[in-house]
């Protein structure tokens, strides 16, 4: 085993890549001749080639699968292809019926409608936002108008300092006027 290891490790480094290509039947004619002439004189490289011959074909052997596997495989692919075709065709069939010009025209129309809505629809949207604010008030509060007033009075309490300030400023202005 150890002798074998040494022999493999000492295979001619400058030929190794060419030997791999030679094994696979690749390379130019001149390269092949050069490798073959080298193999006539170098036993280490011959052993290297023998090792490739013994190792690589065994790695590439494929599994023999039964015919029914391939029949099922084919049927599954055809089924998936049909599903794929149906999935594609329902929306592709729409395009020819409208014609090629309809898509950009439709896009332009959508942009115009959005622009008009943005320019002229601001008032409506603000009303709508007020409505949504009211919708956000819980039903148990809305159902009792007294509670609503109570919460209204809370708002008033919160704004008392502001009102007092306002009163103060009015008082001051009235005093100035009286003077």
């Amino acid at each position: 085993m150890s002798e074998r290891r040494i022999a493999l490790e000492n295979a001619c480094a400058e030929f190794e890549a060419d030997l791999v290509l030679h094994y696979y039947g690749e390379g130019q004619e001149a390269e092949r001749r050069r490798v073959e002439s080298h193999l006539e004189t170098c036993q280490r490289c011959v052993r290297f080639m023998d090792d490739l011959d013994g190792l690589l074909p065994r790695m590439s052997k494929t599994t023999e699968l039964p015919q029914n596997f391939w029949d099922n495989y084919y049927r599954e692919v055809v089924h998936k292809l049909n599903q794929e075709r149906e999935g594609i065709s329902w929306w592709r069939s729409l395009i020819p019926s409208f014609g090629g010009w309809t898509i950009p025209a439709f896009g332009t129309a959508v942009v115009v409608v959005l622009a008009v809505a943005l320019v002229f629809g601001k008032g409506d949207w603000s009303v709508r936002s007020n409505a949504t604010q009211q919708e956000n008030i819980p039903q148990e509060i809305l159902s009792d108008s007294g509670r609503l007033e109570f919460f209204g009075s809370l708002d008033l309490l919160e704004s008392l300092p502001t009102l007092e300030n306002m009163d103060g400023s009015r008082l001051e202005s009235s005093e100035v006027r009286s003077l």
Partner: protein
Amino acid sequence: MAFCQRGETKYFEILVRRYMEKAFHIALNFTRNTEEAKDLSQDAFLRAFTRIKQFDGRSGFYTWFYRLVVNICLDFTRRKNKISWEPLDAISDGAPERPELTDVSSLPEDVTMAREAKRRADRTLETMPNKQRTAFLLRNHQGLSIADIAKVMKTTEATVRVYLHRAVSALRQSLLEFV
């Protein structure tokens, strides 16, 4: 091919028949799992069907299709973040055990050694950079020429030769004691 590009599935089904075994085996080389290989290779056919109009005919269909299969497999292995390089005896889907490296002798110690060699080879392939593995699998397992591998991988033939040499060297090193 023109009929396929018009979306006619019955012509595409001919391509499925022709390439299903190759597609499946490429996926199996990458995943080492029959079910995953089936799903991935079938996905490749669906993707080929939906993208057939992108096929410009500059290269052969199989080169274009192999590229799809390889990319799907590489995406899958990246997503999975590991490759399920199960030992051969772990594949239990009713298919016969792969002959490959395990089928060398009926002696128990030889069988054990062959299985260990197989595990080592799988492990080496697992840890190999994607490009080296792809080049090796396409050449050694699928029998593609270096020129075709270069087209599939969208790289130069010289680069593929380097990938192939490195892959074979790594495998040889890992299997030194079993050769």
